[in-house]
């Protein structure tokens, strides 16, 4: 049974087509990897799936709810770790968790227990009272994962959750994810540029480039289709060798503004 269904999805920014008529589905309980070079349209697709962006064309169903008219039901169905940071640096780890729990209407009496359980899961319980601005990148990532799980979502979106992290932390994060999927049956929708990670983790892969889907299947299927020995080789064969223009993202530019304005982040 599929838990995410996408039909003829398109997103245009002005004349530029970021996502170009894609259709795919994600099965309940699977670990699904959405792969593609920089600028392929992965984040844009995730933003549409999570109600942050309005699709230009297309239909989306998440957990059997229609994204157009059952937004809040869709929103309750998933947790998300965004590609860019999304914590409040001026609050503590615990307060960030609490904020989320309140917004999602998590039962007040159960709240402290749930927050403790998740902070322990990601080894941050002893840092609960520290402001997030004192955290390392890996700690912030772990906190974001814990936060995304508070309301026991059926689906978790992980948009490049391991970028910039050391191998230890990456292994750690992936082991939580495997655990979630195995023990709790949570569906995992992830993107990553580390092909070995995708190959190890994913039950199924979709490759997108220039907004179009150019390959899909299990990692083994993709390898045999492209006659290659690893998912990385298969990925390169599908997407070609040219380097994508990697514009400084608007967030990076803002960071430097922020510094000019005298705010440390």
């Amino acid at each position: 049974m599929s838990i995410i269904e996408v039909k003829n999805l398109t997103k245009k920014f002005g004349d530029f087509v970021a996502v170009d008529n894609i259709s795919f589905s994600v099965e309940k309980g699977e670990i699904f990897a959405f792969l593609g070079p920089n600028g392929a349209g992965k984040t844009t697709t995730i933003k549409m799936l999570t109600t942050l962006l309005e699709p230009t064309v297309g239909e989306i169903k998440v957990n059997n709810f229609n994204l157009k008219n059952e937004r809040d039901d869709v929103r309750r169905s998933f947790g998300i770790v965004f590609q860019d940071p999304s914590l409040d640096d001026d609050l503590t780890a615990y307060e960030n968790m609490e904020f989320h729990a309140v917004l999602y209407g998590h039962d007040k009496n159960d709240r402290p227990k749930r927050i403790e359980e998740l902070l322990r899961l990601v080894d941050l319980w002893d840092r609960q009272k520290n402001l997030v601005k004192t955290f390392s990148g890996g700690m912030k990532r772990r906190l974001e994962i814990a936060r995304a799980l508070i309301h026991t979502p059926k689906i978790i979106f992980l948009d490049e959750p391991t970028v910039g992290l050391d191998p230890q932390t990456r292994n750690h994060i992936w082991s939580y994810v495997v655990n979630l999927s195995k023990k709790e049956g949570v569906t995992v929708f992830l993107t990553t540029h580390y092909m070995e990670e995708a190959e190890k983790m994913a039950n199924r892969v979709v490759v997108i480039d220039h907004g179009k889907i150019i390959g899909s299947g299990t990692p083994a299927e993709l390898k045999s289709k492209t006659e290659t020995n690893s998912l990385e080789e298969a990925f390169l064969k599908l997407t070609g060798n040219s380097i994508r223009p990697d514009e400084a993202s608007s967030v990076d530019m803002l960071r430097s503004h922020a510094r000019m304005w005298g705010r440390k982040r």
Partner: protein
Amino acid sequence: MSTIYILWLRQLKKYIRSTPRIIGSLGQPLLFLLVFGFGFGSIFEKAGGGNYIQFLVPGIVAMAVVFTAIFGGIELIWDRQFGFLKETMVAPVSRFNIMLGRTFGGASVSVLQGIAVLLISFLIGFKMQHILMIFPAVIFMFLTAFFFTALGTAIASKLTDMQAFPIIMNFLVMPLFFLSGSIFPLDTAPKVLQVLGKIDPLFYGIDGLRFAFIGTSHFNPWIDLLVLVGFSLMVLLAGKHLFEKMEA
């Protein structure tokens, strides 16, 4: 309700934790208070205007309130740039409640800032007609703050970076401040200024504050109150519309 509460609480916590911000935003009102208060005081009194500090303090308290409020609204841009906004936008709560929570939070912080300026004014000789009048004063501060926070939020929902902030300050906030009768009485000013002042929401905020602090006002304070509520509802509705359409 709990959505509004947690957003309000967040603004308050962030405010209390940032001592530099508190001190920084007291700087400008204090400067105005000292420079104008002692600079113009004798001219004002010679011209028969009465004690200038008594006249000026309500305007300067309002200044602290308004500047903090606008900034509190504009802070939405920071939240967008640093990503926290997305966290609230994917939550299963109405956008309007998010906006209300932010606005209440920003307005409360602004009232605290206004009270801080008031306390300092006592040190340089300002006297309130009656200490209990602090209650109506807080109401006027809050309504003024609410309007300007909502205005800042509405503007910020259309902006992607902080570069527009000086434009907003210089072309919107400062004119509104000077037109409001904050540092000179509008009643003796040229007709044009008098008319413009009457469409400035801050005029009513300051008029209400003067009533509470020193017992004199241009309009009946109930009229000030109604006008402020009206302006606030208007900008809140506009903000609601913009906020609901906003993409993160």
